[in-house]
């Protein structure tokens, strides 16, 4: 519970601090589309994944904070810190990740590819389920045991995404190699579609107008590995997703994922709060008396 309180306080404090920012976020939690961070901007997102357990498992809450920076208009870099608390067990820090997304094509096309590369330095107690690949995650063992198993993992994704008639359609194919364990090369997928609830902006500033909401559905799961390719012993989820732009600078996101196989957690609740700080370089320069 302490870690949940810490994340809540952090999100609230940062939200209050972000005076100049902007947000128009995709509602997805797992699926990536082709929209990149604006160059020079930083987006800070605090999210949590919570699992409602099967018999023999425990309720868990896995918060993570993500710092996303637009290096250029076609290159976005992200850094994650993550933790996890399990009811009746313990609260643990589960590691960090760094990822880069690069969009090779300059213009919008019918299908827009993005190349994704991530390095993960986490342990097996990680339960944020930011992506699902390989076999189903272990949700039953105690944290003390899981955190001893380190994962140094390199992960690549091919992201294909399309905007058509205000709908976004996106599909991700995932390939991951854990260098700490002999698991072969693991595979996974994520796909989703979403749409804003209104497509015409009203003249007035409003928070509950339909234009500030977008909704969709995403699917994600594992496809086994080179040692055992296929759907055997894999987790799969279908999850309605919703995003609400609560102010010009912040978006709240929510999702309920339903496990489709016995190996999946029956229900995954996800929530996220993100906000964007524009022109972070200039702001830091001004802060230290420079001339941005």
């Amino acid at each position, binding site marked *: 519970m302490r870690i949940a309180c810490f994340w809540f306080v952090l999100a609230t404090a940062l939200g209050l601090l972000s005076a100049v920012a902007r947000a*128009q976020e995709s509602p997805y939690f797992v699926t990536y589309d082709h929209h990149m961070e604006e*160059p020079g901007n930083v987006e800070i997102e605090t999210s949590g994944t919570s699992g409602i357990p099967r018999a023999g498992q425990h309720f868990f809450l896995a918060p993570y904070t993500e710092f996303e920076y637009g290096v250029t208009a076609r290159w976005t870099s992200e850094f994650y810190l993550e933790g996890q608390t399990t009811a009746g067990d313990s609260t643990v820090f589960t590691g960090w990740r760094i990822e880069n997304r690069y969009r090779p094509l300059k*213009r919008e096309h019918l299908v827009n590819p993005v190349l994704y590369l991530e390095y993960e330095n986490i342990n097996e107690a990680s339960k944020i389920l930011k992506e699902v690949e390989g076999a189903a995650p272990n949700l039953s063992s105690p944290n003390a045991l899981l955190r001893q198993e380190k994962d140094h993992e390199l992960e690549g994704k091919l992201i294909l995404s399309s905007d058509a008639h205000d709908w976004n359609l996106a599909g991700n194919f995932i390939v991951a190699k854990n260098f700490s364990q002999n698991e072969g090369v693991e595979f996974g997928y994520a796909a989703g579609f979403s749409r804003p609830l209104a*497509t015409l*902006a009203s*003249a007035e500033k409003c928070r509950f107008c339909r*234009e500030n909401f977008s909704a969709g559905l995403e699917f994600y799961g594992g496809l086994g590995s080179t040692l055992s390719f296929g759907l055997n012993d894999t987790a799969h989820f279908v999850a309605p997703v919703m995003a609400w732009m609560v102010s010009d600078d912040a978006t709240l996101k929510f999702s309920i994922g339903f496990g489709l196989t016995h190996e999946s957690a029956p229900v995954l609740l996800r929530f996220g709060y993100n906000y964007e700080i524009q022109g972070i370089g200039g702001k830091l320069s001004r802060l230290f008396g420079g001339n941005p």
Partner: protein
Amino acid sequence: MIAGLCAALLIPLAVGQNLLYWPDPTWRPPESATAKPNPLANRPAAAAGGKKLFLRECAECHEKDGNGIARKHSADLQLPVVQQQTDGALFWKITNGDTGRGMPSFSKLPERERWQIVLFLRTLRPAEQAH
């Protein structure tokens, strides 16, 4: 006269206005895009929503009145070189961005919202200086 010219150039530069903006010659919409009419052209009131979107999405680089920022090499949207473009061309540029020069794509906005921004761009008062 020279002093006047210098003042005309330097004062806007001093406040950040990008009168020296020169468009990227490779950033050209296809003819099919240029010819597209604005579907909201007969709904001028929608420009107010476009202004709201402009302030949220575009003002960071183009300033609230569309002057542009010389440091960012962002376009002064009041200049004839911008205002003479068709609605379809402006829509295409908002949609695709000019990623080589740092302008991101705004295809994440619904199509009608992008057209609303085009409507608003037409309300920006053109600068007196001809380019």
